[in-house]
């Protein structure tokens, strides 16, 4: 008896893989499956087909209407900018956005329904123990969020940005279903670890059905907290495998916009292999954005070589990432404690909405025993959810992912964004007074809500983005920006460096929320401390031999890495030096 519509006994359509025949663990035996795939498509297909380098330009005719001589300021301005070098030929436009070969580009006119189904997708690449644990929390909370919004169990465009809808009835390699009911949701993800522990745990846990064996790359021996082992040894060994699986994942996307890498900086696999994957992504998918969530080790890290690993990884992040969201364990820990105190401090405890905690998994589709780091990792998961919310859901002021780097990265290397999430929890006495809404904005700029140990208020802002979700209007945004502006220092040439987005769907358990992303010189101390700890080891050449005996690893790697970091710090120093009144350069003085 064949009953394909087996949704019946599932409580929620967000229970993935309810159509899978056979026990789910059966697929474990298939792992690692890497040989049976069709050959990867040829390179050319992956580059989006943009029109050539042609650039229509109409120069203003010389004899245009002139009054009072040469157009004043601009003419003089030319000198001020210092155009010593000859004007360069424009480089061919480099479009972003991976387009799968099957895209319906030539289709003449898309009816509205098609228009709806078209959206961009993102792929999560989780590397190493930390990356996979955080990733695991992300997928759990992403399912929770979509389940809360999507009550009918229809596979919609919002879901499609992180999940495939797969018909698994005919086995693992089911085809994608682009419309209709949810069959089996598969995460657009690649899980990489050089030991099996964490990944196996995921595969045996409640999330096993959102991944399949072809999304995994594991080894047994680990990277021994050695960047070189991860980056050089495993990188070399697994390169083909990784590329193939990335391509496979990308093929399932209709318009791949962004890769999110989650990794830690201190260990061997996350930092070494994670940054190796970053380089691969740049080579293979130059047009797809690369956002990296990097967990930085704390000062009392128990990994002795973590400063080496972090600094070596930093060089790669400097050169190959579009945006990096640095996160420090200490900050996550402080936030978890703060919430804990709040919940347990007697009278308030009863009125905090449990599922509104930024650390909570309550209400997730997967009722799991919480593990110790889950609370901390949930914060990062929520960061990613809020970051992508405006790309997934509608709002009155959309903020696509490609707008983030466009607005927040004024210079290519200064792409480190300090993030903060507010509110950390919601009280149950609703009827939100606007004062509490304003409190949310104030908190986002306070030291103890930042996800790294930093104080943006007393440093220099290069740019700042506010991603708001829920019932917030443009007038609330404007009021709060006006209110906060006087207490913040912005770089002289970007005094109004605010970017805002309004997404109408709030996170689970909240009526509204805010993610603030700051490109701020307050990241500098974190980097300086890292440099100091690196130098302490490096001066004595401690542990160097562990690295140098790896093929392809030379001492120059270390010196280049530390000078890359020093350069970065210097760039921040230069900007900091412009801080303070009177150092700005008004237009008039340029002429």
């Amino acid at each position, binding site marked *: 008896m064949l009953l394909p519509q087996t949704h019946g006994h599932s409580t929620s359509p967000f229970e993935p893989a309810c159509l899978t025949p056979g026990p789910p663990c059966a697929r474990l035996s298939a792992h690692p499956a890497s040989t049976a795939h069709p050959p990867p498509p040829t390179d050319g297909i992956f580059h989006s087909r943009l029109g050539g380098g042609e650039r229509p330009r109409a120069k203003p005719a010389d004899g245009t209407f002139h009054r009072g001589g040469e157009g004043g300021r601009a003419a003089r301005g030319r000198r001020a900018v210092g155009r010593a070098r000859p004007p360069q030929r424009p480089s061919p436009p480099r479009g972003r956005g991976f387009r799968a070969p099957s895209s319906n580009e030539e289709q003449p006119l898309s009816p509205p329904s098609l*228009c709806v189904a078209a959206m961009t997708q993102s792929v999560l690449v989780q590397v190493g123990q930390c990356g996979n644990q955080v990733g695991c929390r992300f997928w759990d909370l992403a399912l929770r969020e979509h389940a809360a919004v999507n009550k009918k169990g229809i596979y919609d465009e919002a879901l499609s940005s992180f999940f495939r809808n797969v018909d698994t009835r005919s086995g693992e390699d089911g085809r994608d279903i682009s419309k209709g009911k949810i069959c089996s949701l598969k995460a657009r993800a690649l899980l990489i670890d050089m030991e099996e522990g964490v990944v196996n745990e995921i595969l045996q846990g409640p999330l096993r059905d959102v991944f399949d064996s072809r999304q995994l790359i594991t080894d047994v021996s680990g990277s021994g907290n050695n960047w070189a082992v991860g980056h050089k040894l495993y990188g070399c060994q697994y390169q083909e495998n990784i590329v193939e699986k990335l391509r496979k994942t990308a093929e399932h996307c209709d318009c791949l916009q962004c890769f999110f890498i989650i990794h830690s900086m201190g260990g061997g696999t996350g930092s070494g292999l994670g940054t190796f994957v970053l380089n691969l992504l740049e080579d293979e998918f130059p047009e797809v954005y690369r956002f990296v969530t990097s967990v930085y080790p704390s000062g009392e890290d128990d990994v002795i070589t973590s400063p080496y690993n972090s600094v070596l990884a930093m060089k790669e992040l400097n050169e190959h990432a579009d945006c990096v969201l640095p996160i420090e364990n200490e900050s996550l820990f402080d936030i978890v404690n703060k919430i804990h105190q709040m919940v347990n401090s007697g009278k308030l405890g009863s009125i905090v909405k449990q599922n509104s905690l930024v650390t909570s998994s309550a209400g997730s589709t997967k009722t799991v025993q919480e593990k110790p780091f889950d609370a901390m990792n949930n914060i990062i998961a929520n960061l990613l959810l809020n970051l992508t919310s405006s790309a997934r859901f509608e709002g009155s002021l959309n903020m696509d992912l490609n707008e983030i780097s466009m607005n927040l990265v004024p210079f290519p290397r200064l792409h480190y964004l300090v993030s903060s999430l507010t509110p950390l929890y919601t009280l149950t006495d609703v009827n939100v007074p606007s004062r509490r809404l304003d409190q949310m904005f104030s908190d986002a700029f306070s030291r103890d809500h930042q996800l790294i140990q930093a104080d943006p208020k007393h440093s220099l802002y290069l740019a700042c983005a506010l991603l708001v979700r829920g019932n917030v209007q443009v007038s609330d945004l404007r009021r709060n920006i006006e209110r906060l502006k006087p207490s913040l220092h912005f770089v002289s040439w970007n005094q109004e460096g605010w970017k805002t987005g309004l997404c109408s769907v709030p996170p689970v358990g909240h009526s509204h929320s805010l993610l603030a992303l700051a490109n701020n010189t307050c990241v500098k101390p974190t980097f300086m401390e890292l440099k100091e700890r690196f130098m302490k080891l490096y001066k004595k050449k401690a542990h160097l031999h562990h690295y140098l005996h790896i093929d392809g690893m030379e001492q120059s790697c270390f010196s280049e890495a530390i000078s890359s970091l020093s350069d970065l710090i210097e760039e921040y120093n230069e900007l900091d030096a412009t801080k303070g009144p009177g150092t700005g350069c008004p237009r008039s003085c340029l002429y």
Partner: protein
Amino acid sequence: MSIVTVQLGQCGNQIGHEVFNAICSDVHGTHGLCSKKENESYHEASKERFFSEEKSGVPVARAVLVDMEPKVISQTLSIAARSGCWKYDDRSHFCQKQGSGNNWANGYSVHGPKHKDRIMNLVRKEAEKCDRLSGFFTIMSMAGGTGSGLGAFVTQCLKDAFPASFILNHVIWPYGTGEVIVQNYNSVLTLSHLYRSSDALLVHENDVIHKICAQLMNIKQISFRDVNQVIAHQLGSVFQPIYTGAGPLHYSRSPLGDLMETLVPHPEFKMLGLRNIPQMPENSLAYSTFSWPGLIKHLRQMLIANATMEEGIDWQVRPPRPGSSIPSKHSTSKSLHFNTSIANLVLLRGKDMHSADLGSFQDPALYTSWLNPQDAFNLWKTPRAFNKYEKSAALVSNSQFLLKPLDNLVGKAWNMFASKAYIHQYTKFGIEEEDFLDSFTALEQVISSYTTL
């Protein structure tokens, strides 16, 4: 004659939708407090202008919707369809999957050339539906990537493909702060490019409209929808049918052509500002009465004092006395605030508009010396009341209205440019420093032209 509206980007599509809504509700929701015959011919003319007929009887907007991401367009289409009052043509839209990311260069140099043929095809189809085409009305913001970059590109294409038609660009000036960080770059590039291919730029400043929402409309929590509705109302008050010239002849003249003829006497000056009076929440309308002399007195002072709304007008500002030297170089502090015009157009709608005396607008002191005040001022009117306002007046002005915002904007963009911030994001898509400099030069020229009026 008909106008084809081209809605570009998130902002353009949201506003376009509200404009058609406003026009539709003016035509269907009110009887215009005039004779039945009057109302019918108004109705007819408005319909020809903005809508085409379909078999089903539901008017179809003469519009092309363009965006680089799908969300806004699909939302707009479905809301319009659900209204039942009017709708968009199901096939008259174009969207892609991934937006322009606030990058003007991406919209102009990448998306533009890539999608030119398909967008222009849609426009051509829409144009062919018109018996008599007056021209194109494009709605876009200057801040983002799609509206601004692609919008500038599409405007150029329109100019090439329809050299005989008029193009009026409606441009949304971004909030001074808080929307898009690179908005000043995008704006400089947009304005300079539009200045080459557009016939006129009709500008709405978000900050101004926001203030109107707060102070005149008494809205506590202002949403983009509120802002867009005010803009739509103002646009409707200009573009709904009206009798041009001296006598009431007929409504169906070329709306864009007449506008250009009266307001843009010289290609160097094509920045138009718009002022409306009165504006108030709908539920206060019933308790208010207006007199033409009062409205006109306010409107005139709004013009010469460059006030953006009827509240908080500086009544001290006076036109420079005719005796004082004409090139007002040694201007006193008072005439410093004085807003000199090139050309003004006042549109009166409502009861007894024939009794209104517009003599105060014909004062030569209001205008630049090189234009005859008789040519510089025009009055259009109709007894048909607009959108539930018993009497209303609109002023479209080619004057120094936008001089200060423009100077500010160019200043901020220049400040950023001098430190080379964000330039790499543009060169990535083929817009070089050279292009920026060209744009700065072009706008400095506009600033200096308007300054020396």
